[in-house]
C-alpha cells in the first residue's frame, strides 16, 4: 500500500500490505560492494491463491486461505477467545505476569527499533518495527477488554485495530518475522519485552487455532515426541549414527572409542541436537574424543526424544514445550545420571536449563549444565591439553542469543576458544549484546517457498555483515581460511546457509563450525587435521 503503515492497517482488505525490495536493503560491508541481491522467489499463482501472503508477500506460516466468509469469521472468533485465554491466570500461568507487564507498560518511545537487526536489515520496513507487532496485539487486547467503550474511544486511545480475517492472518505471519532474540527487550528501559509478546502471539495461534509452521510442530515437536527426533531419526537410526561415528573417529584419528549409549548409572547424560548427527557428525565425534580423553563417565540415550535435545516448543507452544521437556527429564531419571550436559544447541540450553528449571520438578529435577562450562573446567583441571598453534587461522565467535542474552553464559566458551585459537577475535558487538544469526526461533529450519530468501536477505543480513567485519584485516586474502565458530546447531545451520548464499567460501574463504571441533583440532595426543581444510575446499 502507499503511504505510511500503522497497526490499524492490518485490517485493510488489500492484496498485500507491504513488500520488500532488495534494492532498498542496506549495503553489505567490504568486499561485498559489488554484491547484487537477487529478487525474492515469486510465488506461483496457485500459492498466491491458496496461501496467506498478504502481509509482505512472504510465506512463512503457510496459512490456508478459507474459501468462505463463515470460516473466516469462525477463525476471528477463535482468535478473540484465544486473547481471553492469553490473559487468564490458569490457561496462561506460564507467562501471564511478564505478558501483562509488557502489554500495559510500553511508553512507545521506539527505542527498541534501533536494536532490532530484522528491522534495520529490512531497510526499516515499518511492519518489522518491533513496536508495530506488539502494539497490534496491545490494541487488540485493549479493544477486547474495554468492550463498547473502548471501541467508541478507539481513536482517542489509539486502540484502533479491528479484529478481522486480514488482521489475524497478517498478525500470525508477522509473529514469524521476529527471531525472538530479545535484543529489543534489552534496550527497553521500562523492561518491556517485544520478543515475549511475539512468542505469546505465536502461542495463541498454535494453542487455540492450531496454526504453527509445520517445521516446528508437525515435523518438529510432534515428530520428536512420536518417533524420537524432529529429524525423523528413530532409535535404530540413532544407533547406526553412533556406529558410524565410532568408525569415522578410528579412520580419521586412529582412536578406538566406544561411544556409550544407555549406560545406566553414568555420571553424565549428554543431550545433543540430533541435527548435528546428520549435518555435522564431526561435532558428536569431537565430544566423544574430548570426553574419553578426559576420562569422564558419560552416556548418550536412545530413548524417544532422549537423543535429540531440541525443544521447538520454546518457539511457539507452551504445551509442546512442556511435553518435550518432560521426555528429556524422564530420560535422565531413567538412566540415573548425576547430571545432564547440554551439547552445542542454544535453544536446547535455554529450554532445559533456564525455562525448564520450572518444568523439571521433584524427582525429575536432575541438574543440568552447559558443555561450555564443562569444557572450560576440563581445561582448567588439565584433563585435556591443547596446542593452539594447530589452529593458526583467524577465528571469530558467534554468540547464540539463547545462551548469552537469555542465560548469561558468556565467558566459559571464550575461555575455551582463547586457549585453542591464537587468532581469535570478537565480533562487534558481542556477548549479551550480540546480533542474532537470523535463524533464531525456528527460522533456521524454515525453508519453504520464499521464506529462505527472506532469512538470507533480511533476518541474516546483519550477522553476515558482522562476520565480514570481524575478519576485515584478512578478508581479501582468498587463500587464508577463516572460521566462524557457532556453538549452536540452529545458528550453525543459518550461518551455513548464509555463507553459501553469499558465496563466502569462494569470495573470502569463510567457513563455520562448532567449538569442540576447534578443541579437538588442537588437542595434544590427537592426530592433527580434525578440521580438514582440503576436504572442506573440495566440498565447497
Amino acid at each position, binding site marked *: 500500500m502507499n503511504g505510511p503503515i500503522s497497526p490499524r492497517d492490518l485490517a485493510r482488505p488489500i492484496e498485500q500490505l507491504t513488500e520488500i525490495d532488495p534494492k532498498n536493503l542496506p549495503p553489505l560491508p567490504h568486499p561485498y560492494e559489488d554484491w547484487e541481491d537477487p529478487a525474492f522467489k515469486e510465488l506461483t499463482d496457485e500459492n498466491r491463491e491458496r496461501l496467506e501472503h498478504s502481509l509482505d508477500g512472504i510465506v512463512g506460516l503457510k496459512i490456508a486461505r478459507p474459501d468462505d466468509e463463515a470460516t473466516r469469521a469462525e477463525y476471528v472468533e477463535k482468535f478473540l477467545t484465544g486473547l481471553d485465554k492469553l490473559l487468564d491466570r490458569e490457561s496462561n*500461568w506460564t*507467562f501471564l505476569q*511478564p505478558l501483562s*507487564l509488557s502489554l500495559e507498560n510500553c511508553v512507545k518511545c521506539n527505542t527498541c527499533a534501533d536494536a532490532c537487526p530484522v528491522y534495520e536489515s529490512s531497510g526499516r520496513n515499518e511492519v518489522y518495527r518491533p513496536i508495530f507487532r506488539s502494539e497490534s496485539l496491545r490494541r487488540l487486547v485493549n479493544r477486547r477488554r474495554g468492550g463498547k467503550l473502548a471501541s467508541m474511544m478507539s481513536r482517542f486511545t489509539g486502540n484502533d485495530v479491528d479484529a478481522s480475517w486480514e488482521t489475524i492472518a497478517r498478525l500470525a505471519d508477522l509473529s514469524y518475522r521476529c527471531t525472538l532474540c530479545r535484543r529489543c527487550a534489552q534496550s527497553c528501559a521500562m523492561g518491556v519485552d517485544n520478543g515475549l509478546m511475539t512468542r505469546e502471539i505465536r502461542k495463541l495461534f498454535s494453542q487455540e487455532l492450531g496454526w504453527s509452521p509445520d517445521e516446528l510442530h508437525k515435523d518438529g515437536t510432534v515428530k520428536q515426541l512420536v518417533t524420537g527426533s524432529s529429524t525423523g531419526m528413530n532409535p535404530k537410526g540413532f544407533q547406526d549414527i553412533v556406529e558410524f561415528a565410532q568408525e569415522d573417529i578410528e579412520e580419521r584419528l586412529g582412536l578406538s572409542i566406544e561411544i556409550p549409549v544407555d549406560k545406566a548409572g553414568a555420571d553424565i547424560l549428554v543431550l545433543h541436537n540430533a541435527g548435528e548427527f546428520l549435518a555435522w557428525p564431526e561435532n558428536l565425534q569431537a565430544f566423544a574424543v574430548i570426553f574419553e580423553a578426559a576420562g569422564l563417565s558419560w552416556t548418550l540415550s536412545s530413548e524417544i526424544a532422549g537423543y535429540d535435545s531440541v525443544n521447538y516448543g520454546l518457539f511457539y507452544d507452551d504445551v509442546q514445550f512442556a511435553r518435550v521437556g518432560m521426555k528429556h527429564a524422564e530420560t535422565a531419571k531413567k538412566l540415573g545420571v548425576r547430571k545432564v550436559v547440554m551439547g552445542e544447541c542454544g535453544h536446547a540450553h535455554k529450554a532445559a536449563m533456564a525455562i525448564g528449571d520450572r518444568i523439571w520438578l521433584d524427582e525429575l529435577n536432575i541438574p543440568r549444565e552447559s558443555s561450555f562450562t564443562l569444557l572450560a*573446567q576440563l581445561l582448567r583441571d588439565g584433563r585435556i591439553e591443547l596446542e593452539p598453534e594447530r589452529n593458526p587461522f583467524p577465528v571469530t565467535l558467534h554468540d547464540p542469543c539463547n545462551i548469552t542474552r537469555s542465560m548469561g553464559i558468556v565467558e566459559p566458551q571464550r575461555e575455551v576458544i582463547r586457549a585453542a585459537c591464537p587468532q581469535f577475535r570478537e565480533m562487534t558487538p558481542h556477548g549479551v549484546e550480540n546480533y542474532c544469526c537470523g535463524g533464531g526461533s525456528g527460522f533456521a529450519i524454515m525453508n519453504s517457498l520464499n521464506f529462505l530468501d527472506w532469512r538470507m536477505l533480511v533476518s541474516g543480513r546483519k550477522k553476515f555483515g558482522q562476520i565480514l567485519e570481524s575478519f576485515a584485516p584478512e578478508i581479501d586474502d582468498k587463500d587464508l581460511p577463516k572460521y566462524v565458530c557457532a556453538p549452536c546447531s540452529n545458528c550453525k545451520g543459518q550461518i551455513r546457509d548464509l555463507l553459501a548464499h553469499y558465496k563466502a567460501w569462494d569470495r573470502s574463504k569463510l567457513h563455520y563450525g562448532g567449538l569442540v571441533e576447534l578443541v579437538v583440532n588442537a588437542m595434544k595426543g590427537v592426530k592433527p587435521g580434525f578440521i580438514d581444510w582440503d576436504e572442506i575446499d573440495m566440498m565447497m
Partner: protein
Amino acid sequence: MPMPQIVLYAAMAFFVVAVIARAVKYARHPVHMRWELYPVAHEKGRAGYGGSHFEESEHWDSPRQIDHVGEARAMASEILMLEGVRRHNRPLWRFSWPFHVGVYLVIVWLGLLLVAGAVWRGGDAPVAMARAIDLVGFVGLVVGLWGALGLLYRRMADPALRSYNAPVEIVNLLAWIVYLGWALGVHAVEGGFASLTAFTGGLVTLQPVAVSTPVAVEIVLGALLLAYLPLTRMFHFVAKYFLYHDVRWDDAPNPRGGALEQRLTKAMDFGVSWSAPHVAKAASWGEAAQGDGGQEDQR
C-alpha cells in the same frame, strides 16, 4: 471545607488506592516460567559483562553470589539517571531525563511543603526552610516543564513516535505542561510558595486555609493530575519494579523441595482451556505435559 482541600484529599486517597491496587494485581499473578534477560544486576562480579551463575561448572553446588549493592546501584542509576534511555536513546533522554528530574524535585518540594506545614502549622517557616522550598520548587517546575515540552515536541515532530502515539499520549503530556506551567506562573508572580506552605499546614491540621483563586486552581489541577496518573502509562514506577525484579532479573533457581517448587506443582493442577486439537483433551497442565501432541489435524 473549601473545594481545593476536598479535591486534594479525594485525589490523594484515590492515588494511594489505585497504586496499591496495581501493585497487588501484579504481585498476585501466578508463578511463571523463567524469562530473565542478561545482564542481571545482582550477579556478583559478572553483571558488568552479563554473566550468570550458569557459568560455573556444577552451578547447583556452588552458592549463588548475590550482589545487593550492585543491584541497588543499578536501580539508583535507572531511577535517577534513566540509564537505559541514556544509553540506548540519547535524543529522547535529553528531554526525558529533565522531565523525570523535574517530577522528582516536585515530589521533594511537595514533601518539604508538607513538612513545613506540619512543623510550623501555617506559621512562618525558618528562612532556610523557605529558601529550600523556593529552590527545589522553582527548579523542579522549570526543569519538569522544559522536559515535558521537549517530550511533546519529540512525540509530535518525530514521525516514528508520532505514528504510535495516540491523542491520549499527547493529552497526558499536556496535563503535565498545564499543571507545571500554571504552578510556575502563579508562584513566579507570588515570588515564592508562602501561600502553599500555609495551605499544606491546613491540610495537615485539618483546618482549611483560604487561598487565592490562582492557587486554588493550581491545587485542583495538581489533584486531578494526581488522580489521573495511576490510570495512565505515565505512572510506570510500580510496573517497572515488577518488570525488573519479577521478570528481567528473576533468575531464582528451583531447588528440589523448595518453596518455588511447591508453587509450580500447584500450577501444574491449573486447567487447560486451549482448544487446538493437540491440546484440547488435557484437563490440567500436568496432564497436558504427559501427552505426545500427535495425531491432530493441522489447519
